[in-house]
């Protein structure tokens, strides 16, 4: 791809440039939301209800209001439309005793331990905290439905306003082919029941933000999020304001991974600034959550249970799949209905499946909400699908790679949703490349031994080694008919006499959550305009200056933004040729429309493109303590085109380690609606000493026909296959299958003992 306007340079697509934001981030100059709170700001403290399921009888804020330094205590009565939600307005902004006719969600029921009861605003953070402790509430306890089993066996409904007779509130089906015919042709059958754990995002920056009126009297929120314009939509709804009177800005964001896709402090801070301004107090209002408030107060990767059956004929060709998927939505929907869709179409794996019955549903409970997290339902499904395939390989005696080769989706394959796969299915090449790089056909090379105890030498007799393989797809972009779009604006600058622009400005709302999106945007703009990266200024993540980009999620941002940037550059080029200075190009990119699945058969075209991944893992287990060390990971990705290869590598390495934590050590526990270990001392993400000894990132570039410069989305892919590949490696080492994880030492040891007695 050559530039549409300017001269060639080497700072565009494919260049391993340094990040332009790195200098600020290594000097402490980068400003995260908490750093933006000015010295004279008021401080707000959100009061959580601490009630997984209870009816509010009375709320008394008088002591809090009288507390030193407190300037306001906001409650449900202060919210114009007391409800919000990313896909469904099912959550009150505040639990309260008042209810107006603008919402049907009963506001007097706390359904989650972190439901918000009030916001205490004071002169200092300490005074806000002291005031918050004085908010008094009387509760009538309701039956706490702490997990799926409790929610499905009780008559108590968490959202009776939905008019359903069960807490199971959203379902998908797949009825494909002829199950009986498939079963009749079956030689090998694998069955399993899999328990999928929570995962906490554990971004290093806890939620924080500030709200104020800008110089144009727009109610402005600065916060870390993933989609400025969607935040603004939800603000407008709850505050009953037109969108153009609201503004959302993202300063530096300290990680996200899906965990900032839903609202945290946005609405309550804007509400406080609005109500205080009505009283003449125009100071900014800021708030920072503690780590505990962050972990308790935002959603998680869904836990769930999947029962699955896989059949294959004597040659190993898949004959049928049956599956029942149940995910724990927690107290509110968040994106659970969408996450479920992803799990639903992923549970049959990345294979040609002629016959299938799949039933998937989400269930409301009084536990922490499930929501977006890197992979978005895909990792849970891929764990099941790939573990089933690896069990099939063991049962049939067929080579696990060969088994995948004969079943893999390829160009022209019919997908589980009974439509043809979008063009560019590179999975066969990805599987082969990973198998070659991992040397799957050869014996494993030696790895140095490890000891789980620092002061003790490795116990050679207790160590066993194994390796495992898994592959998967992950959709890129919004699915199931959700309106997908992305806008960009480019200004080409230069004199009238200049043949080519000398500099450019890119306006884009896409969120830089750490992944390097803005660096990639600049490089794509450089490629598209011919202006060198160093001469392109980016104006980012501000609803006041950019159109809607969609979210930083679904591995979509580089893909969608790249297409929008190409379009804007092309528009700007026309203007430039016509002599406009600056030459301004605006573009709204819309990909091919996707479809919702047929409610009875699951037929439809859910996604416009996919990314593909295969991983091979070699590991060692100490069979006397259950500790695992991963010796080698080969993570193979078709990225279509690496816009910046170093950033791609960074995404692979980072996601592999996040997946490593998911598979091994991150063990979030919940009981009766309360999280039991909401701290970094109890929820163990990997440190530098815990990571695999070696990660080999294999980057393939099989162009996506629709991708900008051929690029595919890739940021979620390493998350998909790690847990099943590790479980397969542990089985290879010990002969024991694990149908749940994380593979904590005690779980591993218990599993080994169960088999050996």
């Amino acid at each position, binding site marked *: 791809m050559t530039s549409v306007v300017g001269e060639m340079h080497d700072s565009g697509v494919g260049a391993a440039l*340094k*990040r332009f934001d*790195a200098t600020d*981030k290594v*000097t*402490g*100059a980068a*400003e*995260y939301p*908490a*750093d933006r709170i000015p*010295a004279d700001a008021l401080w707000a*403290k959100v009061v959580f*209800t*601490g009630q997984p399921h209870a009816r509010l009888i009375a709320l008394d804020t008088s002591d809090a209001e009288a507390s030193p330094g407190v300037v306001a205590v906001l409650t449900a009565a202060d919210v114009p439309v007391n409800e919000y939600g990313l896909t469904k307005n099912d959550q009150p902004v505040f639990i309260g005793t008042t209810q107006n006719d603008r919402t049907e969600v009963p506001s007097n029921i706390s359904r989650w331990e*972190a439901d918000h009861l009030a916001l205490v605003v004071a002169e200092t953070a*300490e005074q806000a*905290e*002291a005031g918050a*402790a004085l*908010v008094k*509430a009387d509760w009538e306890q309701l039956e706490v439905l702490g997990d799926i089993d409790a929610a499905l066996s009780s008559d108590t409904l968490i959202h009776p306003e939905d008019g359903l007779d069960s807490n199971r509130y959203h379902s998908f089906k797949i009825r494909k082919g002829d199950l009986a015919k498939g079963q009749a042709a079956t030689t090998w059958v694998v069955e399993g029941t899999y328990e999928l754990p929570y995962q906490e995002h*554990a*971004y*290093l*920056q*806890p939620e924080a933000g500030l709200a104020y009126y800008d110089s144009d009297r727009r109610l402005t929120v600065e916060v870390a999020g993933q989609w400025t314009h969607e935040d603004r939509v939800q603000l407008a709804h709850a505050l009953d304001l037109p969108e153009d009177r609201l503004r959302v800005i993202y300063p*530096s*964001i*300290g*990680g996200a991974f899906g965990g900032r896709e839903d609202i945290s402090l946005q609405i309550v801070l804007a509400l406080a600034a609005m109500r205080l301004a009505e009283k003449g107090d125009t100071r900014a209002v800021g708030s920072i959550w503690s*780590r*505990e408030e962050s972990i308790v107060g935002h959603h998680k990767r869904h836990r769930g249970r999947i029962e699955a059956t896989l059949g294959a004929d004597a040659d190993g060709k898949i004959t049928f799949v049956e599956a029942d998927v149940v995910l724990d939505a927690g107290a509110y929907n968040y994106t659970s209905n969408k996450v479920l869709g992803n799990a639903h179409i992923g549970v049959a794996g990345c294979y040609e499946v002629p016959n299938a019955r799949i039933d998937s549903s989400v269930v409301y409970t009084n536990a922490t909400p499930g929501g977006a997290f890197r992979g978005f339902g895909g990792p849970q499904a891929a764990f099941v699908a790939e573990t089933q395939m690896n069990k099939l390989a063991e049962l049939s005696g067929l080579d696990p790679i060969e088994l995948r080769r004969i079943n893999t989706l390829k160009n022209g394959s019919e997908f589980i949703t009974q439509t043809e796969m979008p063009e560019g299915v590179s999975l066969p090449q990805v599987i082969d490349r990973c198998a070659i790089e991992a040397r799957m056909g050869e014996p494993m090379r030696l790895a140095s031994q490890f*000891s789980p105890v*620092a*002061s*003790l030498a490795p*116990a050679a007799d207790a160590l066993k080694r194994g390796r495992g393989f898994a592959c998967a797809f992950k959709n890129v972009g919004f699915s199931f008919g959700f309106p997908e779009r992305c806008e960009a604006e480019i200004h080409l600058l230069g004199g009238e006499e200049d043949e080519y622009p000398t500099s450019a400005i890119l306006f884009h709302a896409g969120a830089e959550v*750490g*992944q390097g999106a803005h660096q990639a945007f600049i490089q794509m703009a450089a490629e598209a305009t011919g202006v060198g990266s160093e001469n392109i200024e980016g104006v980012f993540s501000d609803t006041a200056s950019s159109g809607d980009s969609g979210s930083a999620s679904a591995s979509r941002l580089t893909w969608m933004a790249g297409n929008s940037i190409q379009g804007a550059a092309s528009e700007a080029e026309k203007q430039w040729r016509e002599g406009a200075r600056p030459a301004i190009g605006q573009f709204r990119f819309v990909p091919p429309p996707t479809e919702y699945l047929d409610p009875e058969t699951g037929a439809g075209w859910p996604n416009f493109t996919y990314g593909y991944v295969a991983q091979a893992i070699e590991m060692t287990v100490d069979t*006397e*303590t259950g500790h695992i060390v991963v010796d080698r990971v080969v993570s193979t990705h078709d990225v279509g085109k690496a816009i910046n290869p*170093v950033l791609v*590598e*960074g995404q692979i390495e*980072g996601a592999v*380690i996040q997946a490593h934590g998911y598979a091994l050590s991150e063990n979030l526990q919940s009981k009766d609606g309360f999280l039991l*270990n909401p*701290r*970094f*001392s*109890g929820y163990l*993400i990997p*440190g*530098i*000493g*815990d*990571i695999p000894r070696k*990660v080999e990132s294999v980057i393939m570039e099989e162009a996506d026909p629709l991708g900008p410069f051929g690029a595919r989305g890739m940021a979620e892919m390493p998350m998909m296959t790690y847990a099943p590949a590790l479980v397969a490696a542990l089985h290879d080492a010990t002969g024991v299958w694990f149908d749940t994880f994380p593979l904590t030492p005690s779980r591993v*040891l218990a599993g080994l003992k169960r088999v050996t007695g």
Partner: protein
Amino acid sequence: MTHPIQAPAATVETYHAPRTLTEALELLAANPSARPIAGGTDLMVELDRGVGAANPVTLIDLTRIPGLDEIEISEDLVRIGPLVTHNDIVSHPALPAIALPLVQACLEVGSPALRNRATVVGNVVTASPANDSLSALNALDAVVHITGPSTSRDVPIGEFTVGVRKTVLGEDELVTGISIPRDPQRRSIYAKLGLRQAQAISVVHLGVSVWLGATGEVTDARIAIGSVAPTIFRSIAAEATLVGQPLAPPAIGAAASAAAAEIAPIDDLRAPADYRRDTTEVLIRRCLTALQTRTEAQLWPDRTPTLRITDRQPTQPTKVTLSNSDAITVTVNGTKITASNAASLNLLDWLRGPAHHSDPSISLQGAQEGCAEGECGACTVIMDGQAVLSCLVPAARANSDNVITIEGIANGGRLSKLQAAFVDYTAVQCGFCIPGFLVSGSALAEEMSDPSDAQIDLALSGNLCRCTGYYKIRDAVREATRSELG
């Protein structure tokens, strides 16, 4: 009425920094509910969570008292002063030969920046059964020295702790040292099993000592196990099994089984009881085997990064007692900054709040709060020449000291070699954790050149990153710490 995790922090109203032990004891006698503080790595977390009866709180900071941070080695004793930190123990050249389990245990506590503040005596006084040094000291027959307003007493370590976080220490008493008898015949080792390589609360930890007779038979033994009971558990049955037997597999196996049979651990979030029992047996067997094969010290590293650039030299502040609104003066990145709210804030909040806002030309918001419990390292700064976790340091403790933050790492506006390497290697993604990594990495670079990957990993073991996967960070640190000739 709030959610339990939202309990308000305790307010520190008064902060005393006595200059003598006598003064400290007098203050304690006058304020029976005051909390003595040394490293503060446990207490600051408790205060932040509002744990403990007294609120508002008076702190008596012992760390300005000279002479209490000494390790005295005499012919028959090692005496550890009350301000001796875990890193003092880890880096002491003579201790591995004298008290191996203690140095091994101290290296397992937290991370380097935490070990620069956390004291061994503090670990003992906190008295959680998971505290690593307790089993080591138990296996070494340590004695706890206690001083009160009028009397002093010595208590064997096994009698000092009487329950989970309960000791025999009186309200008006201080622990003024721990002694370990020197015994050339004693052979000892410590082992810890956690759920992470570093910064892991012990699932099981234990100290084992044996004494061997002329013919290789065990004449005496100490087996002290932590995290399996409310206090450290001495397995008398296992010890008895060993005595009189040659230190060899039959007796080793029998002793390990005897210990596993004797303990009655509980289930908790980290592991079920069964797992503790099984791995206690495994660890005892492996420890005794290491003693049998004389490999107990084999894995003790030659040189362990401590992230200390200079010796700790706390200056004496002019004002000994501070109330919560008083100002303190700290030299931050070479500039003297005077700002208020000394007693009530931790150093991180003081830097980011009053100090940052004290002068528009000063920017001090690079250090970040990621956890407020010393786990993530995003708040790491240099104080008194060593890396510390600023969320766990009372701001008043920095009064009249030198502090270096991320903003002081660059050389007059030019990136340091390490900063440049982080940029060059794209070791930065969201960047929130990066100031902490850079402060730790800069301290490492000052402390040693050409560190091994193991030393780099140890130096950075207290810094969590969720974006990068650490590989590019490790590469950048390796590159920046490479000596010109090396």
